[in-house]
């Protein structure tokens, strides 16, 4: 069992190093530590599940050790910037003021074709119109065009626009979301008033009711097109 303990730690750390060396493109949404955990967990669980000759502990113990190690490494990456850089890497600037940084492309093993593909996916065909392109730790490409290449915002045009705010669901298929109702500082009496204004007597008749920060109510009755 102690061998299992140390082997788990060695292989886990080795896999993290391997994932880091594979580069950002392989990582995806997860941190390297989480990706390695996800890679290992399913296999670890399936081995004692299928092989009755192995005690359950042969699967349980490594899983427990991996979860603890991931927890420790995740917390350490939160606490220390240097450690986070070591484990997760740091974002790489691949286009700077319309200039391709070939060294960074090479360092991240990113081909021009892949870069152009990422740009096209964002609707950009000419890299010189890009102010910054950053390969994030997750492997995603953040592309920031020059301001002159983007649509003007209301602020740039000195215009005032009404903020709609985030709509919150108050009634979901005839059920009142009491937590949301409380969060929006409304009560049952207010809800009944709203229903009666719509000619409804019960929440059961409502398919969806939302309320946004400006107080705008949106209601869809059951059987009605929303």
């Amino acid at each position, binding site marked *: *069992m*102690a*061998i299992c*303990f140390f*082997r788990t730690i060695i292989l886990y750390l080795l896999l993290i190093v391997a994932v880091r060396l594979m580069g950002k493109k392989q990582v995806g949404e997860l941190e390297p530590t989480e990706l390695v955990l996800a890679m290992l967990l399913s296999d670890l669980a399936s081995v004692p599940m299928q092989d009755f000759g192995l*005690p359950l502990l042969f699967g349980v113990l490594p899983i427990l*050790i991996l979860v603890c190690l991931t*927890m420790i490494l995740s*917390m350490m990456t939160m*606490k220390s910037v240097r450690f986070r850089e070591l484990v997760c890497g740091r974002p790489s600037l691949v286009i700077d003021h319309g200039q391709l940084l070939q060294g960074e492309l090479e360092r991240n093993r990113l081909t021009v074709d892949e870069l152009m593909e990422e740009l096209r996916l964002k609707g950009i065909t000419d890299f010189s119109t890009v102010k910054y392109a950053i390969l994030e730790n997750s492997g995603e490409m953040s592309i920031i065009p020059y301001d002159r290449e983007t649509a003007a915002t209301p602020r740039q045009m000195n215009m005032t626009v009404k903020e709609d705010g985030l709509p919150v669901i108050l009634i979901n298929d005839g059920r009142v979301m009491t937590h949301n109702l409380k969060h929006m500082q409304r009560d049952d009496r207010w809800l009944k008033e709203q229903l009666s204004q719509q000619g409804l007597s019960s929440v059961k008749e409502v398919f969806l009711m939302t309320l946004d920060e400006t107080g705008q109510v949106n209601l869809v009755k059951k059987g009605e097109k929303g």
Partner: protein
Amino acid sequence: MKRIWISLGILVLVLAGTLVHISGVRSVTGSITDRLDRAEAVVEQGDWEQARQLTQEAKEEWESVDTWFAIMLRVGDTDEVTTGFQEVMGFLQYEETAEYDSANGTLLEKVKHLYETERLSWTNLL
């Protein structure tokens, strides 16, 4: 920070548990092999009764840790020791010297193997 300490605590507990387990396996397998060695020695002197008693004691000691070993060790390894004991007890009953020597030798190796696979060593680790 609390999560780090909890995780570290669990890791330390697991490590301590595995070390206690190794120590327990060494102690039990050591005691069993000692009895089996002595049984083999008294068979050479023709004292079959004493050999039966020592082997029976070793078997009882093995049975007392049966559940623990079944949880912590490979079932195949522990099953082999259990059947090995039955084989040795059979040869002791019929006082078959050659067969007993062979079966007891195999059983001794299987019991020693349990500790060998568990102990912390570079060979096992790598």
